């Protein structure tokens, strides 16, 4: 076995351990109410096992990271696969830091799934070790990326705790407008997480069946030398069955899918961007599969998923969750500012010759920073503790995720890694 395979196996072990430890957190928290046991003893015993497994998983993932580093010859944070696995590792580390402070293992119930979903998401991207173009060969880049990811990891834990606060305080029996709105918000949040799972399942599923379809598209493009508009033919390869084909395109070939021989519709003509038809198709697929998964689970638990989760969580002190959420974000804020802005400026200064260029990715890092600045200032005011600030922590994590994924998917820039 060579080093690269070693490394991949270590990651797989970590992934499995995270999943098991997640189940153990569920047992630790939900099992408190099982009969013939002392809830406190039960919680303590199972939490200890779960935390231990999480820690071993983290060690395994660190092993992955270091071995891949040696195999590749550079710090493995330079493509989407590597970055996302690094982020998931940082989230587990951040969770363990907050656990060390607060000793509330229930946090694992929500922090671990975030990490697990990110590893699964990473698996969608090509895993190969890639060579670096000169602009990426700088240790400032590694310092920038890893520090920023660590800050984001604390925001992720802040999000997990904020979501838990909301789940544990929402009143599922009240019909007041406020709580109806809050319940809807929670379901949407849960659905969004399921959509990401849906995306992972769909892409990996069709990858294993080698599904393929191909389209050609005539595009008007400006010729670089002459500056005149010329017509170029571009081919787009789909790896998911196309409900939506690219705008103004013709089908070159398409594997049939469940009797579907032709794409159902065409992307709107204003979507002229590179690959926008394919991205739209992928998003649609994720939404649909997410919806199916959501309703499957909902039919099983026979109540809104928020209510189900509330029941599992039962009996965690909400004030503690609020404080953990705030603390996680407060710990993450300086790290994020240092990594995503200051180190980024140093790197950009060294590599591109300017410390700031309003590149979309850079700008979104600034937006994330401003968002959490607003959060911290609002926390100083009365009335912004508890549920309002928990919503902000949820929203903040959405901003983080948009910066990491959405920007690449929707807006492309200098920093972007290849999208799917």
């Amino acid at each position, binding site marked *: 076995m060579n080093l690269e395979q070693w490394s991949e196996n270590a990651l797989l072990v970590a992934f499995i351990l995270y999943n098991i430890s997640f189940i153990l957190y569920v047992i630790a928290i939900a099992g408190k109410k099982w009969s013939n046991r002392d809830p406190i003893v039960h919680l303590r015993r199972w939490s200890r096992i779960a935390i231990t497994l999480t820690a071993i998983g983290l060690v395994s993932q660190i092993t992955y990271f270091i071995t891949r580093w040696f195999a590749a010859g550079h710090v493995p944070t330079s493509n989407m696969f590597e970055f996302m696995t690094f982020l998931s590792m940082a989230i587990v580390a951040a969770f363990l830091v907050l656990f060390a402070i607060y000793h509330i293992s229930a946090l694992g119930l929500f922090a671990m799934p975030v990490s697990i979903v990110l590893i699964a998401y990473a698996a969608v991207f090509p895993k190969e070790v890639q060579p670096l*173009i*000169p602009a990426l060969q700088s240790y400032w880049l590694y310092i920038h990326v890893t520090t920023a990811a660590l800050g984001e990891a604390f925001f992720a834990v802040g999000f997990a705790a904020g979501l838990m606060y909301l789940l544990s305080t929402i009143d599922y029996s009240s019909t007041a407008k406020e709580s109806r709105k809050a319940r809807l918000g929670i379901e949407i949040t849960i659905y969004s997480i399921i959509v990401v799972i849906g995306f992972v399942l769909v892409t990996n599923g069709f990858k294993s069946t080698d599904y393929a379809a191909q389209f050609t598209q005539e595009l008007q493009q400006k010729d670089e030398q002459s500056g005149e508009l010329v017509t170029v033919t571009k081919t787009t390869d789909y790896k998911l069955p196309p409900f939506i084909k690219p705008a103004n395109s013709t089908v070159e070939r398409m594997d049939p899918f469940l009797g579907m021989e032709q794409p159902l519709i065409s992307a709107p003509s204003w979507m002229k961007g590179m690959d926008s038809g394919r991205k739209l198709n992928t998003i649609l697929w994720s939404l649909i599969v997410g919806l199916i998964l959501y309703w499957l689970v909902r039919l099983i638990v026979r109540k809104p998923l928020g209510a189900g989760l509330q029941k599992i969580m039962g009996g965690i002190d909400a004030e*503690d969750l609020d404080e953990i959420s705030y603390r996680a974000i*407060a710990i993450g804020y*300086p790290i994020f*500012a240092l990594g995503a802005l200051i180190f980024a400026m140093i790197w950009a200064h060294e590599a591109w010759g300017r410390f700031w260029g*309003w590149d979309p990715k850079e700008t*979104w890092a600034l937006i994330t920073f401003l968002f959490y600045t*607003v959060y911290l200032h609002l926390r*100083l005011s009365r009335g912004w503790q508890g549920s309002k600030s928990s919503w902000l922590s949820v929203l903040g994590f959405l901003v983080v995720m948009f910066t990491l994924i959405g920007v690449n998917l929707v807006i492309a820039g200098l920093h972007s890694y290849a999208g799917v």
Partner: protein
Amino acid sequence: MLHNTKCECGHQNPVGTVLCESCGKPLDDEFGTAPLEMRYDGIARRSQRENPALIDRVWRFFSSVKVAIILIFITLCASIVGTIYPQENTFLNVDPSVYYETTYGFTGQIYYLLGLSNTYSSWWYKLLLIMIGASLIICSLDRVLPLYRALNKQQIRKHMSFLIRQRVVYQGVLPSTRVSAVSFINDLVPVLKRRGYRVHTDGTALLAEKHRFSRWGPYINHIGLIIFLLAVLMRGLPGWYMDQYTGFLEGVPVQIENTPYYLENEQFTVEYYKEEELPSEFRGQGRAVPKLFETRAILYECLADCSSTDPVLMQVHQQNIEVNKPLKYKDLLAYQFDFRETIQIRTVNVSITNKKSNESFGPFELNTISPKETYVVDPYVLTLKDYYPEFALNDKGMPFTNSKSPLAPAFIFLIQGPDLAEEGEVFIYFPRNVDKQRFSQDKLNEAVVNKIDIGVSSMEDVGISQFTSFLNIRMDRALPYIFAGGMIFMIGVIMGIYWQHRRIWIRIDHENEITIGAHTSKNWFGIRKELSVVLGKAGIVVEPKQLENGVKQS
């Protein structure tokens, strides 16, 4: 409204004070029960003046955290809007007035017309930054001095309602009747000291305080931000900022505009990844993935005759420029940006031959960028009558040059010397063999071709430059201030967030009634735990959670 601002403890407070500066008694809602608003310890600030004049109103506007939050939020939204479509500065050679419409249709046109295609350099975005800057300055001034005063003159024995309206509260009786109130207090001192507190006692009252410096964190970080913003604005001033792209042909020093510096690209190298270094998916596609660009650069300072063809240069710096390793000399920075293969003859070491005697003289160097006017090669004297870097003939058969780059150089000399006419004879010399053939040098030189010849003896006499390296030349005198601002910001944020200002007040009344209040700038969980441990050492057993105001102390 007129307040009597004198507290019952005898302290005269300024108007606007919420908690007596001395004993902490709540002045405005004396009989409330809700936890107190402890920010700035309830001191009066300038922004709370009554009957404000215009300047007070402006002051009040900018010192409000609410306004600050709104300003930051608007900036956030504006920044989002700026990322919807690419900004204009991301293109070269594109006409934005048509680009947005043709590429993005109607919405693109609106975007352009609203000026959103230049969001970050627009006047209103700058105005937002300036307003945040003003707000930072004013809010900090408004708070920092009063806060300093309040923290500097704390009374040890606080008012009862100040204590029981803290967020962390304990009320009970002394655990043992054997210890007196004073010795209970004195016994606590070493316990608290060991935990890093500075402890002050006053008979049966105690004040323990630690990490006060963390309260200055936000002000330090705001100062860092102010420096940062000022530095960013400073770059608008002339002489503070330069950003230009210049091509440097190998071996030719080029002046950097508006500076006394000349930069020479001595040699440029580009290296590609070898096939076996690429991962499998990149192989066999004939894709050239560059691994290294490098410009061997020499920087000169011009001492005299600058901007003439023959300036007096002194070498001041030498460095290899790579993508992540710019040349640095004082304020000047040169970054590797791009390169182009531009094969040109730069120098030729030629000899002049007398065809009759077959004697050669020289060699002497001809420079294709800035040839000299005369060359003395004893016994010959060559006067350069004309020089065409890229020689061509127009439709009337007259010579002209296509460009200033020596792509097809042609030298026209008037040569005087042995066996030549007294007034000299004309000789046309093409260093490149292709040009010699194309323009039939021998025919042009018909009159002298049997008397003399000019040429090189081997390829080693020809100096070739292969590449033009494009460098991004920058000067940003604000940069040190920008990074200093960033550093100060970080120091302030870390101070304010990773440390917390904790205070514990204890008073004992009627010999054994103990009342404790505690406050921290953050991390209430931590201070409850700490207080619980401290009380445990003193024989009072209380769960951290029970110390929270409002939680039953069972």
